[in-house]
Each structure stands twice: as structure tokens, then as C-alpha cells.
């Protein structure tokens, strides 16, 4: 990780004739580049705002009111979370493209107008789609906090004379404020580092963001120095925001005070119960139902824009995708190979580091955890720029093999894997191990008899998180793949250029299906564990 980042700085400072800051000068003086930075900021800001609005509304409804079918809604939010944004963006081009977009066609046939209702290839469309796939981050954050605020805190204000609105404004909101701000930053960061969605939706409208600009600089003729120079501000922005977020959430302590023991009563929505539920479903249909449906339709139809009748029904797309189209078989194989490999190695490393830091087995264990978490501040595409520069030259020439992708994925997924593994080990009380020790087990036997069985579910979950993260990865892969080492996400991106809509839909559904199967498997494993031990 240090190596690639170091190379970014070096490369950004190396012009054709030696050391210079020409790269930076060019990046910060050319209007196209400045425009891309500006676009990115605008987009990320609005994505953050919308994601916080949707995410916190849903989180509050699900945790604090008597909204029906909450589990289903949580599952649907999870589905939006799992959907790769580039896939969502692609589905939305089918739904709301200005000419052939389904929603626009319906609008035209209903009103007889010539105009399109939506144009997804615009700043607005871009913000809309990115927000749809960023809000789950805010959701999980706010839902956690809402579950920790006990009703007692609100009752205390109530008894002192505050009405519902006052309570919401003076107690509930301030308590959740740090999480709201944290959620905003998270959504902001997420959209800052996205590549797929802005590329699919922005490029046709000549809207560049920082990530697509970096990608463009890698196209022929490649300008590595500029790409590197352009990566630096993105990297710094991410670092700054994460530090800010840490600071805001670090002081969050008070919002969890009284989280223990305090019961939470649910607000009764009364006559609004059903209308609110419909609203929630409408929001989720934008991120889940509509895109999934159009993908399914596109996968099964001869002509995706026509109604799905028997005549139009075909499995040709599947045959073509799996057996005929050149790259897909290799790409699928590569994707799953990399997924399994990264998840396995990643889980092992994450578990080892988490165990060592948690039990403080080594001096300086804290620094280890810092290294495991550090990649969090590196956007995928920046990591890819660094890896590209670092591993296309001796001593490690990995470019052109799947190993460079492996390293990219491993680095990128390490923070998630590590935090998951750390939570797992934190939940295993050290006294459980001590008890085994004092009864006669040595360190190895303790690991085998106590630690391993108790950590199993958590580590399986870790594995699955990494696996899902890997198979949907696009922003780093797009710079690091070669014709011999393509992965599914890259193939989907390429096919977009060729207009192979049916094949994209098939591959997209394959990714979704595998992701959901993996999640179900985790829940099944966790559920069984819960049955056996409850708690």
C-alpha cells in the first residue's frame, strides 16, 4: 500500500524532462480538469444531502415507528446496498434514457408530448442514481443510533413540558446530529470515489468527474503523470473527510449513554401508517424494484424495449452471454477466482491482525490495526493508479496478470474485513479463553476449543463481505485489467460501449444472484448459531 502511494507522488512530480510540478500546474489550470473537480464536488454534495434525507427518514421509520413489514424494508435497503452502483446506473439508462427510456416512453404515450420527462444523462440524473445507492450507508449509521436512544431520554423532555415537535427538535435531533453529519460525509465520500455510475451516466453528456477524468487520462495516449497529479487532491480530500468524520463520531459517546436497559417505544403512525408505507416502497422501488425488473426484462427479451410477450421471450441472451461472447467465460472465472482467493486470504490476514491487536499479543499491535484500516482513505481508482505505476516496472512486474487485481482487492477490502473480524473478536470475552487456559489447555488448544468455534460465524461473515466487495469492484479494475485478466464488472462496462444490453443484464443478474446467495448463506449460518447458543 505504501509503495503504490509513494509512486503516485513520485510520478505526479516527474515530467518528461525531470522533476517538476508541471503536472500539478496543468491539472489546476486547465478548465476541463477544474470543471471535473467542480462537478465532483457539486454531485457529491447533493448526493450527500439526498442520501441523508432518504437514509435517515427510512432509518427512523424502521426503528422508531410501527411501520408495517419492517424486516422486508430492511432487506430491501440491504438489496440497494448490495447492488453495484454501475449496475443500477445502467438499469436507469434503460428506464430513463431520453429516447428509448421506458419511463419516458410511457410518459409520451400518456401525454402525447414529444419531450422526454427524464433525462438520466445529466447532472440531475447522476445525482439521483448515485444517491439511490449511497443512502444505505446513511441508513445503517442512523438506524444504529436510533436503536441506542432510549425512550426515557425523550420522556424526560416530555415530562418537563416539551411537546412531540419540541422533543424531536431538542432531544432526538441533537442526539442523532453527529450520526447525520457522519452519514453525510460517508455518502459524500462514497460518491467521490465512485467511477461506474458517473462514467455510464455522465460521459454521454460530457460530464466529467475526477474519477472519470483519471480514467480518461489512462486511455490512449496515457498521461500517467497527469493521472497521478490528479489523484493527489482526491486522496487528500478523502483523508481530510475521514479524519473529520472520525472527529465528529468520536465525540458521539453521549448518544449511546443510556443505550443499555432503556426500552424504546414505537411511535404510532395512525392513519398515516399505510401512506407512509407506500412512500417507503416508492423510494425503494427506485433503487430496487424498477432497476431489477428492467434488468430481468432486458435479460429475457429479444428486444428489451418491447413489451415482454411470448414472442419477445428468449433465452438467447443467456446462451450468448455464457457460451458465445468471447470474454465472458474467462471474466466470470476470473471474478470468482479472485473473489474466493481474496476473501480467503483477506479473512485470514484480517483475523490474524484483529486477534493480535485485540488480545495485544505483540508490542505495537495498535500500529498494525492502523495499517489494516489505512486503505479506507484511498479511493479505488487512486489505489489503481498507484498500483499501476508501481507494478509495471521492476522489481515487481505484475501488470497483465490477475495478481495486480488481487493486490488491489486485498488492499481495498482490508479495512472492511478487519473491522468485521475485530468486532468478532471483541465479542469474545477474554475470560472465555482464560477459563480454558486455567483448566489445562495451552494456547493452541484454547484457539482450537474456544476461540475458533466462537469466531466462526463472524469470520464467515467477513469472508462474505470481502467476496461481495470483490465481485462488484469496478473503479480499480477498470485501470488494472488487461485483455487477459478481465473481470465481470469490466466486461459489463465494455459491453455498454457495444450496446449489448441483453448480455449486460444477464451478467448483472448473475452478480446480484451470487451476492444474494452469499448473504443468505451468512444469515443461515448466523441463524443456526443463534439457535444453538442464542446471544
Amino acid at each position: 500500500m505504501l509503495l503504490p502511494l509513494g509512486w503516485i507522488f513520485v510520478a505526479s512530480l516527474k515530467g518528461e524532462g525531470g522533476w517538476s510540478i508541471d503536472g500539478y500546474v496543468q491539472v489546476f489550470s486547465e478548465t476541463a480538469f477544474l470543471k471535473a473537480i467542480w462537478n465532483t464536488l457539486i454531485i457529491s454534495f447533493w448526493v450527500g444531502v439526498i442520501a441523508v434525507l432518504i437514509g435517515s427518514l427510512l432509518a427512523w421509520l424502521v426503528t422508531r415507528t410501527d411501520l408495517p413489514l419492517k424486516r422486508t424494508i430492511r432487506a430491501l435497503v440491504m438489496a440497494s446496498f448490495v447492488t453495484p452502483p454501475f449496475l443500477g446506473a445502467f438499469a436507469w439508462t434503460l428506464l430513463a434514457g431520453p429516447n428509448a427510456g421506458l419511463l419516458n416512453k410511457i410518459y409520451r404515450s400518456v401525454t402525447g408530448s414529444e419531450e422526454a420527462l427524464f433525462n438520466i444523462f445529466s447532472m440531475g440524473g447522476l445525482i439521483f442514481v448515485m444517491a439511490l445507492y449511497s443512502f444505505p450507508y446513511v441508513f445503517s449509521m442512523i438506524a444504529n443510533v436510533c436503536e441506542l436512544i432510549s425512550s426515557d431520554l425523550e420522556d424526560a423532555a416530555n415530562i418537563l413540558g416539551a411537546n412531540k415537535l419540541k422533543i424531536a427538535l431538542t432531544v432526538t435531533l441533537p442526539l442523532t446530529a453527529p450520526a447525520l453529519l457522519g452519514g453525510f460525509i460517508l455518502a459524500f465520500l462514497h460518491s467521490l470515489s465512485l467511477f461506474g455510475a458517473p462514467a455510464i451516466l455522465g460521459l454521454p453528456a460530457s460530464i466529467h468527474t475526477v474519477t472519470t477524468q483519471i480514467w480518461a487520462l489512462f486511455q490512449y495516449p496515457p498521461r500517467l503523470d497527469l493521472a497521478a497529479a490528479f489523484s493527489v487532491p482526491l486522496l487528500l480530500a478523502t483523508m481530510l473527510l475521514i479524519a473529520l468524520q472520525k472527529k465528529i463520531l468520536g465525540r458521539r459517546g453521549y448518544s449511546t449513554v443510556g443505550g443499555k436497559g432503556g426500552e424504546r417505544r414505537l411511535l404510532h403512525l395512525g392513519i398515516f401508517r399505510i401512506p407512509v408505507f407506500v412512500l417507503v416502497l416508492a423510494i425503494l422501488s427506485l433503487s430496487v424494484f424498477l432497476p431489477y425488473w428492467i434488468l430481468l426484462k432486458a435479460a429475457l427479451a429479444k428486444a428489451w424495449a418491447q413489451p415482454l410477450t411470448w414472442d419477445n421471450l428468449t433465452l438467447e441472451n443467456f446462451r450468448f452471454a455464457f457460451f458465445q461472447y468471447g470474454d465472458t467465460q474467462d471474466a466470470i472465472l476470473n471474478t470468482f477466482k479472485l473473489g474466493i482467493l481474496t476473501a480467503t486470504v483477506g479473512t485470514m490476514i484480517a483475523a490474524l491482525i484483529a486477534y493480535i491487536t485485540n488480545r495485544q499479543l505483540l508490542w505495537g499491535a495498535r500500529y498494525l490495526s492502523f495499517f489494516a484500516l489505512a486503505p479506507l482513505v484511498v479511493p479505488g481508482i487512486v489505489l489503481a493508479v498507484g498500483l499501476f505505476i508501481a507494478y509495471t516496472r521492476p522489481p515487481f512486474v505484475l501488470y497483465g496478470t490477475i495478481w495486480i487485481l488481487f493486490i488491489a482487492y486485498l488492499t481495498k477490502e482490508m479495512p472492511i474485513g478487519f473491522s468485521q473480524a475485530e468486532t468478532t473478536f471483541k465479542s469474545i470475552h477474554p475470560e472465555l479463553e482464560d477459563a480454558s487456559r486455567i483448566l489445562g489447555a495451552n494456547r493452541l488448544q484454547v484457539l482450537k476449543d474456544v476461540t475458533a468455534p466462537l469466531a466462526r460465524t463472524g469470520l464467515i461473515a467477513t469472508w462474505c463481505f470481502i467476496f461481495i466487495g470483490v465481485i462488484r469492484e469496478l473503479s480499480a479494475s477498470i485501470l488494472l485489467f488487461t485483455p487477459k485478466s478481465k473481470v465481470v464488472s469490466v466486461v459489463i462496462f465494455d459491453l455498454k460501449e457495444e450496446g449489448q444490453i441483453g448480455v449486460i443484464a444477464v451478467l448483472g443478474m448473475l452478480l446480484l444472484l451470487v451476492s444474494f446467495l452469499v448473504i443468505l448463506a451468512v444469515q443461515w449460518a448466523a441463524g443456526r448459531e443463534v439457535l444453538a447458543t442464542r446471544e
Partner: protein
Amino acid sequence: MATVALKRLTKRFSETAAVEDLNLEIGDGEFVSLLGPSGCGKTTTLRLIAGFLQPEEGEIQVNQQVISSPSLLVPPERRNMSMIFQSYAVWPHMTVFQNVAYGLKFQKLSRIESEKKVERLLQLVHLEALRERYPSELSGGQQQRVALARALVVEPQILLLDEPLSNLDANLREEMRFEIRRLHEEFRITTIYVTHDQAEAMVTSDRIAVMYQGKVVQVGTAQEIFERPKTAFVAEFIGKTNILKGKWEEGSQVMLGEGLLVLVAATESRKRGAEVSVCLRPHNISLTGSASEAEQWRQKGYNLFAGVIQRRIYFGDAFDYLVELPVNHLTLRVVASPSQRYDLGKKVFALAHPDHCVPVGES
């Protein structure tokens, strides 16, 4: 068969000493409590004995054999000890039976033999009906019994208990105290018990070691510690007490203030004028409203304090009075029988026998 000796034991955590120069000897089959407020180093001491921690100075001996010192650490699994933890540490992924049987795995026993042992222990702690349950299906008290059975089944030389009852509710806690004592009488294993609850220590222990700031302040039977505390800290930590500050005078007397001399229990002599406190338990003071009666008691050698009732609380089985003395704003807490009713502001005489006035040093 095991004696334990802690000699000049010191353990530091990043420069602050959790345990400092601690000395304690525990006899074979003895039940000793380490009693003290949180942060006094009692749990650290226990973990040092168990071998989870290594001392920076001093040593731990079992049967005169050194098992812990700055240069030597016999690992926990080879100490022939058992430990019961504050969190019970019952393994959630094993049934009650598997939990209890675990320690026998490391002893070379036949299957039948070890099953027999587990059965016997389960019976002893009344869990035989729950042997196939998982811990999450048990109440806190039952989990605690599993932990007890699991620790005892291996027939350890030494049993260590780390605040084992602090997570239980009040009723259960009281019941488990007697249970622990009963099991001790049955097995007579050398036992070291860490607690911050004086009643727990009194019910279970042969001797109590009161700890404060990483050191043992006083060791003795419950009665010795209660009746003859060495320091004000010990006196206040064990039971309610009045602590009256004063100066030492000739002939086992303490001057509390202008004209208020108290005759105290004869212990070691001190220097005249030395700072000293008097520990006087509220239930060892009696009250009377009559001056002549008070005078009679005084002639018999009792200490007499004249004062005014400042506060009265009714507890059903007793009145709890606060008596204000005219000297130095001193107050006395007095526990009197419910038949002795005095109104607020009433002038009363408080009487205490010198044997009950124990001179204590500062900690």
C-alpha cells in the same frame, strides 16, 4: 494440599503500580478473601496467582515452590488451579455437560471415569437435569453453578474466584454465598476469593485480607477486622462506623477537642500528641435522656458524650440517630432500639464502653 505465599509482589501497568509490595500467606485448605474497593488491585493479584500476569518484583510460591517471579512464569495450564470469573466465562458453544467435562480432557481418565465425575459434580450443584442445555438457555445463577462445577471437577489444588457473584441479583447472591461456603466445607480446597462486598467475604471466608491501593492493609478473621480495625479505611470499609479524629494522651486516652477525652481500648501505646482516630460503631453506643443515669455509667468507666438529637430515621427494627456534640461540630451516629424514642432537639447522653472505642491510624 497447597499453601500459597505471596512475597513482596509488585505489578505495574504503564508505571502505575496496581499491586505494590504485597505480602500474604495462605494456609492449606484455607479460604481467604481479598476484599477492597474497585481499583485496589485485588483482581490483578488474583490474575498474578493464576499466571495470566507476570510480576515485576517479588514471587509467588505454592508449597514452597516458586511458580511466579520476574524471571519465571509457570503457565496457567500447569498450575493445577481453577478459576471462576466475573463473567462466568461459560462457553456458549458447549452444553452444560461439555462445559463441565472440558477440564477432564487434559487428565488421563477413562471415559466412564470422567463421566462419573461430571455427573457427581452436576448433582452437587443441582444441575443434573440441565446437562444437555446450552448456557444461553440457563439463568445467571445456573450459569454460575456450571462455572463452579467446571472449576471443581478437575479437583484443583487451588481455587480462585474473581467476584463471582457480582452479576447476580441480590437474593441469588445471598443464596450463592452459602453455596460457595458449603462447597468449600465439602472439598477443603485452598481458596482465594476476590470481592468488594464485605458480607460476601464474611460469609465465605476463614480470613479476610483487606486491600487498599495495591497493598494488604489488614489480614484477620471477620471478627478481628470488624472489631479491631487497624486503620480508618478498614473500619469504614467494613460496616458503618463513626470516625472521630483526635490526639493521643497518656493512659490510653484520646483528646477529641476542648474537654472531650475518650478512654480507648488498650492496644499498642503511641506518642503523646500523635494524630489518631477513634472508631466507634453506631450499635455500640447507647443513649439515655437522664443525667443521673448517665453519671452512674460514667462511674463504671464508660465514656460519656452529651449532645443534641439532630436527625432521626426510623428503620422498623431500629432508630438511626445523629447526635450533635458541642465540641468541634462533631456528630455521632447511634443505632438504638425502637423503644428508645427521642425527639429532635432533645438533649441526650451517649455512652460507649472503652473496649468499643478502637484507636485507628490513618491509612
